[in-house]
């Protein structure tokens, strides 16, 4: 029997103005990163409700990364500051619950940083893959 290679499932929330454009730039420059990363576009990183992160882990995600504009560069002036604080609180709670800190990350990627986007995703995917499958919060009732 062929053993299926373990592929992590990573959800990336990217803000429309910087990070989503940075991901597009990575594409324009053909900078490869693992296909395990699936991007969800949000207007601003501050649109990411901690509920969404919990939901992803509940549904079996192995890592969640939130990307926004650099501090001071937020299209909406201050959104990424909220993200930083909210996620710091959420991630330390998740850590307490047994979701390792390496599975969660907030990263600032500007629209000009395609290379940084690809590098971040490569690094994050590698770290998450090393931890293996996330069983901690997964709701088995969600699995068919």
């Amino acid at each position, binding site marked *: 029997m062929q053993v299926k290679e373990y592929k992590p499932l990573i959800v990336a929330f990217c803000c429309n103005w910087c990070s989503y454009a940075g991901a597009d730039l990575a594409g324009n420059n053909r900078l490869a990163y693992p296909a395990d990363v699936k*991007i969800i576009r949000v207007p601003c990183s501050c649109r990411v409700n901690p509920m969404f992160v919990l*939901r*992803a882990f509940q549904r079996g*995600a192995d890592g969640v990364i939130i990307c926004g504009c650099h501090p001071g*560069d937020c299209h*909406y*002036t201050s959104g990424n500051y909220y993200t930083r604080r*909210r996620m710091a609180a959420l991630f330390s709670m998740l850590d307490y619950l047994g979701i390792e800190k390496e599975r969660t990350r907030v990263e600032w990627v500007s629209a000009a940083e395609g290379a940084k986007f690809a590098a971040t995703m490569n690094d994050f995917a590698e770290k998450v893959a090393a931890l293996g499958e996330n069983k901690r919060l997964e709701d088995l009732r969600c699995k068919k």
Partner: protein
Amino acid sequence: MQRIGVFVCWCGSNIAGTVDVQAVSEALKNEPGVVFSTNYQYMCSQAGQNIIKDAIAEHKLTGIVVCSCSPRMHEATFRKTAAAAGLNPYMVEIANIREQCSWVHKDMLTGTEKAIILGKAAVAKVNLNTPLTAGESPVTKRALVIGGGIAGIQTALDIADAGFPVDIVEKKPTIGGKMAQLDKTFPTLDCAACILTPKMVDVAQNENIRIFSYSEVTEVKGFVGNFDVTIKKHARFVKEDICTGCGACTEKCPMKKVPNEFNLGMDNRSAIYIPFAQAVPKVATIDPNYCNMLKKGKCGLCAKVCAAGAIDYTQKDEYISEKYGAIVVATGFNPISMDKFDEFAYNQSKDVITSLEFERLTNAAGPTAGKLVRPSDGKHPHTIVFVQCVGSRCSACAEKGKEYCSKICCMYTAKHAMLTRDKYPDTEVYVFYIDVRTPGKNFDEFYRRAVEEFGVNYIKGMVGKVTPEGDKLKVQASDLIANKQLHIDADLVVLAAAIEPDKSARPLATMLTASMDTNDFFTEAHPKLRPVESPTAGVFLSGACQGPKDIPETVSQAGAAASKVIGLLAKDKLTGNPCVAHSNELMCNGCSSCERVCPYGAISYEDKEFRMPDRTTKIRRVAVVNPAVCQGCGACTVACPSGAMDLKGFASAQIIAEVDAICK
């Protein structure tokens, strides 16, 4: 239940090369709500758009998913297509399977798998989409141009010519910018002042243009069509409307030892000064750092000689608030500091100068009245070495210089070399270069004239070290083509310093929430298709603030930015972004959490009457979002503890549906 159509684009081989488009459209057929699914070579083409329009009519679609390039590229296109077929444009979702899938994954299998998942997420989202209508807001028919160099001047003139009022904010006491400091301009050798100063006069005389010189923008609020801007007018201690610019005060001022920034410190000016003869506005300004009256309360000579009585030592900084519909950034560039380039001995010898200083040395209005002499001893230089790419294309020395090509140096160095040989044929001129880059109309012909007709010695190689020795400058350099070391005894060394965005650009970008690249150049909305617009609606880019540019390019970009501004100001109403927050008043308990995080002050509270189950009525305080002010960031949706606040177009349920689809 929605009736969803899925349209998978091949984008030629861009998507189809790594994604099995047929498999994607097949797989998405069975998703909930999907009634039609197809694929086509170029969905964005006329034929592709017709497929979408026909399918909307034939299958009575209520929502569509286009699996194609980034929504940043063609979301607007497909929304228009949907609208043309009678579908609400906000019932369109894009699955980005090009930039974020086919272009970054090499393997067909993984590419296809991921494309299907992204498609499913988009379908899951569209299932929850609701038709949205954008609100309208009025447009303030006035433009603001920040920066009064040639870019700002041209933009302002073009906007004013179309009949709209324009304000120019310039931080220096006069408009004119870098171009005013230049001598001749390549490749035609027009005198810079002769073509610039008439434009400056036009600006001053145009009744649609107001100049705020010696001023800066300190605050920007609002959004496209309705910006509220605060301008700080620095006290110049001279009443602008009374000063006639006669210059009597500058002659009588006893404090004459102030480094003259217009001549880059190569000569001195008085503490009360007019930057140059053709300055606009031509009014004097007192430099508070040097004026004895302002510093010690002793002197007052200028007030005594001013026949118009324009001097006012008690003048204070003034803040002006004004509304604008559009803002053009034209903050320009500066040569980088030479402090870190010790090898060229810039700080050790007066005879090592930058190209901009050379420009002033050869300018008839400059410190030497146009006579080319060594700054140290006033003697005529017989051997001049020009060094190109000082700090440009400097990937190995990023802490010192810049990685990019500064673009203008090759041409102005050719100009300097040519003009030197033309005026002083006895001078030996060497130019050291990495590459000579001359892409522009008549540029290469110009460079070749410098070499062939004027006998300038172009040597491929870099200068390693400049050592002052006696009254000579020992230049050590390599000749890469002859493969040998050169030692030249030069009288003057001219450094083509890299250019960088003006320092004021960074704080301005923060105020405007306009994005910048890693070099602090403003980013354009699209590098090819929207080169003069910033991604922030209503903010436009003109000139070198967007990237290194020569004068012809700056002027054409300035005109382009002006035409975009005119297009915006010509509208009476702007359709806003319908993806705004809204509060469910049945769930809202009026706690003010949302109001506190809103960066735009878009949320207010109203007392509303509610019917209770027991048929009594109760008055409660609930949040109300002003859709014209809300920009749709969503900060409030997360802050709301009761879940009453949601964002149209990016509703919590929609994002959760996407998460679920991805994690299935």
